[in-house]
């Protein structure tokens, strides 16, 4: 069946460093991939989405490229800020939205 895998449960970085959060997926359909961000005690919000192969999509300094050849949609940022500390979910559009297990990003001063 359809599935989403996020390999890192917890990522801790110092402010100003680059970050990449991994996301791979499995589906037999044409994929629609998303990144949601959830700050502490808040609701998840859509950060990025894409269904176009090899096209970079960007928002709020974060970017991701859907690679159908490797079934990946990794989230990146060139310089993390303290306010980026949050829980990040990769999600796959199927008959329902399937969320990955989430990656907690903590940015230290």
């Amino acid at each position: 069946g359809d599935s989403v895998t996020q390999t890192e449960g917890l990522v801790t970085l110092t402010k100003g460093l680059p970050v990449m959060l991994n996301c791979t997926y499995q589906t037999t359909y044409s994929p629609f991939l998303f990144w949601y961000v959830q700050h502490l005690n808040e609701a998840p919000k859509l950060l990025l989405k894409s269904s176009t192969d090899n096209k970079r999509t960007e928002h709020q300094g974060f970017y991701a490229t859907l690679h159908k050849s490797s079934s990946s949609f990794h989230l990146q940022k060139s310089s993390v800020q303290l306010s980026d500390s949050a829980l990040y979910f990769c999600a796959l559009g199927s008959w329902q939205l399937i969320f990955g297990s989430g990656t907690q990003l903590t940015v230290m001063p």
Partner: protein
Amino acid sequence: AQTIHQWPVAEIKAVGSPLSLGCTIKGKSSPNLYWYWQATGGTLQQLFYSITVGQVESVVQLNLSASRPKDDQFILSTEKLLLSHSGFYLCAWSPDWGGNTGQLYFGEGSKLTVL
């Protein structure tokens, strides 16, 4: 603009007691509605979805039920709480079928603690 409101914000309940959580969406006619459950720091598990008034589909069996009595209202309930029901309950809506577009708008959530 559309708004989504969940109530209550938090509940502390005893095992075996009943529960009712609510969600109201304003500014959008006939939205697709969803209930999600999240353990602390955990992933988002879809519980129910509803495409129209009076129709609710269950995604997982967790001794919970849901109803959509009005176009803009979605209710989650159980007659007997279990310890495993503790967590964060999120109501969400989408203008289109959420799986294909992924544009879900979440409410602020209801935190449930079962003791």
